[in-house]
C-alpha cells in the first residue's frame, strides 16, 4: 500500500491511498484503502492515509477516528494518531501518516516498520523505514 497526505498554500488538505491488497487474497476481498474514513480521509482538520491489516483499520474507522478525535477533544494530530495506534488497534496492526491544518505532520505505526517520508515548507525532512532509526 502507498499513500500521501498534503496541506497546500491555500490551506487545503488532501489524502490519497492506493494498493494491490493482500497477497493471495480471495473472494474479492477488499481492504481499508478505498473505504472512505477507514484507510483514506481528509476534512478541514486533518488528512490521513493508512496502511496495514485492512480489516482492523476498517473495524476502527481509523482515519476518520483520528480526525474526529482531534475535532471533538481538541487533541493534537500526534495525540489523536497515538490514541488510535495504541488504544484502538493492536500491536502489529497498522501505520498512519497525517497532516493537520497547521501543517503539523505525524507518522506512527505499531508494526516493526513503515516506509515513510515527510517534508514541510520550513525544510523539516524525514525519510525512514523502521521505528527506531
Amino acid at each position: 500500500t502507498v499513500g500521501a497526505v498534503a496541506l497546500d498554500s491555500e490551506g487545503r488538505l488532501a489524502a490519497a491511498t492506493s494498493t494491490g491488497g493482500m497477497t493471495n487474497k480471495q473472494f474479492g476481498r477488499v481492504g481499508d484503502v478505498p473505504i472512505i474514513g477507514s484507510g483514506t480521509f481528509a476534512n478541514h482538520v486533518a488528512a490521513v492515509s493508512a496502511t496495514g491489516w485492512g480489516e482492523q483499520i476498517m473495524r476502527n474507522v481509523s482515519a476518520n477516528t483520528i480526525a474526529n478525535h482531534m475535532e471533538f477533544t481538541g487533541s493534537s494530530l500526534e495525540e489523536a494518531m497515538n490514541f488510535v495506534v495504541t488504544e484502538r488497534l493492536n500491536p502489529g496492526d497498522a501505520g498512519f501518516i497525517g497532516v493537520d491544518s497547521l501543517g503539523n505532520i505525524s507518522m506512527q505505526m505499531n508494526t516493526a516498520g513503515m516506509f515513510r517520508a515527510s517534508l514541510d515548507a520550513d525544510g523539516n525532512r524525514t525519510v525512514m523505514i523502521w521505528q527506531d532509526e
Partner: protein
Amino acid sequence: QKEWAIALHGGAGTISQDLPDSVKARYYAGLEEALRVGELVLRDGGTALDAVENVVNTLEDNPLFNAGRGAVFTAEGRHELDAAIMDGSTLAAGAVTGLTTVKNPVSLARIVMQESRHIFFSGVGAEEYADQTSVERVDNDYFHTQNRYEQWQRSQEQASAESTPMTMEKWIEDSKFG
C-alpha cells in the same frame, strides 16, 4: 502555521532490518523520489490534491511498493487494485476497487471524485467507467514483478500444505498486508 506540508508512506508491516544495503538504498531512493514530486507541486503553489495524486502515481509506478506496478498477486494469480482520494476542503471523495487494467488507480479515483455523481465504483463497473475516461490502460501482466510472483508462489505452497480447510479469520491472520 506551515505554508505547506506533505507526508507519504509505502506500506507498513514486518520489514526485516537485515535487508541488504543495496535494497535499503533502493527503498530510500524511492521514498526520496516521491517526496521530491510532492515538494515540487507544493513549493510552486500547486494544490494538495495534485500533490497527493502525483506522489501516489510515483509510488504506483515504482515496483518496490505494493500498488500499481509491483502489486501483489491474488489467489487466482492476477492483480486487483484499489485506490481512494479525498479533498478535505470540500469533503469530495472518489474510490475504486478491483481494477485490473488501470495503470494508476488513484488517478481514476480522482476522476470518479471530480467527474461522476458517485464516490465508489467496483470491479467490472469500475473498468467500464475507466473506458469512458482517458486514464492509461495496461494489460494485467504490466503489474507483474518477479519478487511478488515468488512471494505468491511461496504463499500458494504454504496454503496447499495446510491439511485443514482455511477459515477466513485464519487466512487473514497469517497473511501480510500493507
